[in-house]
C-alpha cells in the first residue's frame, strides 16, 4: 500500500501545477448561472485551453491515478470543471470511442476534445427514472432514418447542446432491456422542443425534451439496433473511481471554511457543533482514502464495488456537510440565499437521487456484491 506519487505521477503533478499557475489568470470572468450561451462558451473555451496544452484527453486515455491528480490539482487551483462538456467527455464520447464505427469516431470525438461541440443526455423519462430500461420513447425505421417520438427529462445543457445521446425503444415487443437502441440526435433537428425545468434551488439546471417525429439518420446509431442497453452500460461504468474527486477536494475546503466561520462567530465554543465538524473531517478524509483505493483498484483493471459504496456515502456526507453549514450560519442567516452555502445546501438534496438513488445503490450492493436474492 503506497499513498505517495510515483516519480511519473509527481512529475505530472508538478508540470500541471506550473501550467495552471500560468493559465488560470488569463481565464475570462465566470458567466452568471442563467447565462446559458455564456456558460457554453466558457466551458468550451476551457476545454480548448486544456486541449492546446495537451490535457484534452486526460479524462479518456490517462491512467486513473493520473486522472485523479488532474482533477485534484485543477480543483485545488480553482480551475473550472467540465461543465457543459460533461456528457461529451464523460458519457457520450467514451461510448462512441468504445462502440462507434471509425467514421463515427472521426465525426464526433475531435469536436468534443477540441471544445467545439456540446452533448446532452436523453436517457431518463417521466415514467422511466430508477427503472431506466422501462423507457418508452419510440423510434421506427423510415428509409435511412429513424423517426423518434416521446419525451426525456433531467437533460442538462439541452438548451445549448449540439448532440443528444438518446436511448429509444425500437422493439416494443422484446423484453425491456432488449428493445433499446442508442442514437446520436442532432439537437437542431425539426420536432425537438426544450422546456427548462426549474429546480428547488430556483435555477434552470436541466430541461425536459419533447420529441415529435424527429428524424435521426440510421448512420447515427451506435451499436446494433436493440443492443442499446449494453452500449449504455459501457458509458455508465466509464468514470468509475474518479467521478467525485474534485467534489471531495471542494468539500474538504468548505469544511475548513466552516471551522473558520464558526470560530469567527463564536459557535466554535459549542462542543456539539465542534464535534460534528470533527466527525465530518473523519468522513471526508475517509472518502478521500476510499477514492484513492478505488482509483488504485481501477488502475489494476480490477472490477470493483467501490462506485456504489462511494456514491452512497458521499451523497449523504455532502448533505450532512451543508446541514452543518446551516448550523454554523445559525438562525436567519441559514435562510438567507445571499449567504454562502445556503444554495449549496439546497442543491445537495439532489445527490441522493441523481445518477441512481441511494435506495437503488443499496439494491445494487445487496444483489450484485453481497449476492442476496433478487429483491422485491
Amino acid at each position, binding site marked *: *500500500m503506497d499513498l*505517495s506519487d510515483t516519480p511519473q505521477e509527481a512529475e505530472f503533478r508538478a508540470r500541471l501545477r506550473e501550467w495552471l499557475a500560468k493559465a488560470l489568470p488569463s481565464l475570462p470572468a465566470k458567466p452568471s448561472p442563467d447565462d446559458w450561451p455564456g456558460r457554453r462558451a466558457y466551458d468550451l473555451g476551457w476545454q480548448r485551453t486544456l486541449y492546446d496544452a495537451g490535457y484534452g484527453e486526460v479524462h479518456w486515455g490517462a491512467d486513473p491515478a493520473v486522472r485523479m491528480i488532474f482533477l485534484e490539482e485543477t480543483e485545488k487551483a480553482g480551475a473550472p470543471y467540465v461543465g457543459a462538456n460533461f456528457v461529451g467527455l464523460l458519457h457520450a464520447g467514451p461510448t462512441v470511442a468504445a462502440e462507434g464505427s471509425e467514421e463515427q469516431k472521426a465525426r464526433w470525438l475531435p469536436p468534443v476534445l477540441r471544445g467545439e461541440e456540446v452533448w446532452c443526455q436523453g436517457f431518463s423519462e417521466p415514467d422511466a427514472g430508477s427503472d431506466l430500461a422501462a423507457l418508452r420513447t419510440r423510434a421506427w425505421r423510415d428509409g435511412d432514418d429513424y423517426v423518434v417520438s416521446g419525451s426525456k427529462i433531467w437533460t442538462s445543457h439541452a438548451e445549448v447542446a449540439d448532440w443528444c445521446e438518446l436511448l429509444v425503444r425500437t422493439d416494443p415487443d422484446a423484453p425491456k432491456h432488449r428493445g433499446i437502441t442508442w442514437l446520436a440526435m442532432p439537437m437542431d433537428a425539426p420536432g425537438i422542443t426544450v422546456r427548462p425545468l426549474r429546480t428547488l434551488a430556483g435555477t434552470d439546471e436541466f430541461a425536459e425534451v419533447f420529441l415529435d417525429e424527429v428524424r435521426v439518420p440510421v448512420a447515427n446509431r451506435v451499436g446494433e439496433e436493440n443492443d442499446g442497453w449494453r452500449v449504455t452500460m459501457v458509458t455508465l461504468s466509464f468514470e468509475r473511481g474518479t467521478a467525485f474527486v474534485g467534489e471531495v477536494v471542494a468539500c474538504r475546503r468548505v469544511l475548513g471554511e466552516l*471551522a473558520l466561520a464558526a470560530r469567527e462567530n463564536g459557535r466554535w465554543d459549542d462542543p456539539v457543533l465542534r464535534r460534528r465538524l470533527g466527525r465530518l473531517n473523519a468522513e471526508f478524509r475517509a472518502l478521500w482514502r476510499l477514492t484513492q483505493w478505488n482509483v488504485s483498484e481501477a488502475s489494476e483493471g480490477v472490477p470493483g464495488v467501490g462506485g456504489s459504496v462511494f456514491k452512497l456515502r458521499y451523497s449523504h456526507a455532502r448533505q450532512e456537510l451543508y446541514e452543518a453549514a446551516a448550523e454554523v450560519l445559525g438562525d436567519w442567516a441559514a435562510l438567507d440565499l445571499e449567504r454562502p452555502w445556503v444554495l449549496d445546501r439546497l442543491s445537495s438534496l439532489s445527490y441522493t437521487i441523481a445518477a441512481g438513488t441511494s435506495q437503488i445503490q443499496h439494491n445494487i450492493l*445487496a444483489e450484485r*456484491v453481497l*449476492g442476496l436474492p433478487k*429483491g422485491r
Partner: protein
Amino acid sequence: MRFQLTEDQRALREGVRGLLAGRFGRERLRAAMEGDAPQLDRELWRELGAAGFFSLRLPEAAGGVGLGLPEAVLAFEEAGRVLLPGPLIATHLAAGVVPGAATGETVVTVVDAGGVVEWLAAADVVQGDAAGAVPVRSADPLTPLHRTAGPDSSSDARTADVLLTSLLTAAEQLGTAARVCELAVQHARTREQFGRPIGAFQAVQHLCAGMLVRVEVARAAVYAAAVTGDPADIAAARLLADEAAVRGARDCLQVHGGMGFTWESDVHLYLKRAWVRARRPGSVTECEELLAAELLAEAS
C-alpha cells in the same frame, strides 16, 4: 500511488487467517467461554508468538519479522474477525521492551488512560499502576476487566503507544465489522420466511448493504492511517471503525431476529467485544475533538 494490498500483504493476510481458522475456530471460541472466568490459552499464545504475531514490527536483527504498521493492521484485522481473546495489543507493543513478549512466553497487559485493565489476572506483566484494581463484572464474557481508582498518571509517557493502540483497535474493529456483515448475509440467504429467503426483502437487503458501506469506508481509513501513521488519520480510522463494528454487530443481531438475542448465537460476542474496544482511549469524543482542532489548524 498504489493504494492496494501488495502480493506479500495479501499472502500475510491469508497466512494469519489460515492460522487462526485452524487454531481458533468457532468451537474454540465457544469453549473459551466455559467455566467461571475465561482462561487465556497459553499454548495458542506461544503459537502466535512463534508465527510472529507479536514480533511482527521488531527489526529482524532483534529477532522480529521486520514488517511495518500496515502488516500489523492486517494481522489485527484477522484477530478481530475471529474475536481472538487476550491483551493482544499490549503484548504486541511490548515486544522488544518486555522480555518474552515477542515470543508469546510473557503476556503483557496495560492500565489504560481511563484506568481500565483487560486480562489483569492472566497477565505476567502489567504496565502502569494496577494496585487496588477491582474486578468489573464484564459484559463481554471473553474479556475480563478491572478498574483502578483513577486515571493512570504514568500513561502520558506512552503517548506513542496510545496512538498505536487506537490504530490497532481500529484494525480489530474492522475485522469484526467485516465478519458480522458476512454473518448477516449468510443468515439472510438461508433463513426463510413468507416462503423465501429474508435476504430477498429490501428492508433486510438495505441493512446488509449499509453494513458493507461502513466496512469499506472504514477499511480505506484504517489502511491509510496505517500507511501515514498521522494522528488525525488514526483518529478518523478509529471513529469509522468503531462505528462499523458496533453498528454492524447491532444490525447483524437484528437480521438474526430472535436467534440473535440468544446466548447460543455468536452475534452478541461480536457486539460485546466491539463495545469493549470502543471504550479504549482514543474514544469518540477525543477523536472528534482532535479532528475538529485539526480542521482549524489546517484552514488557518
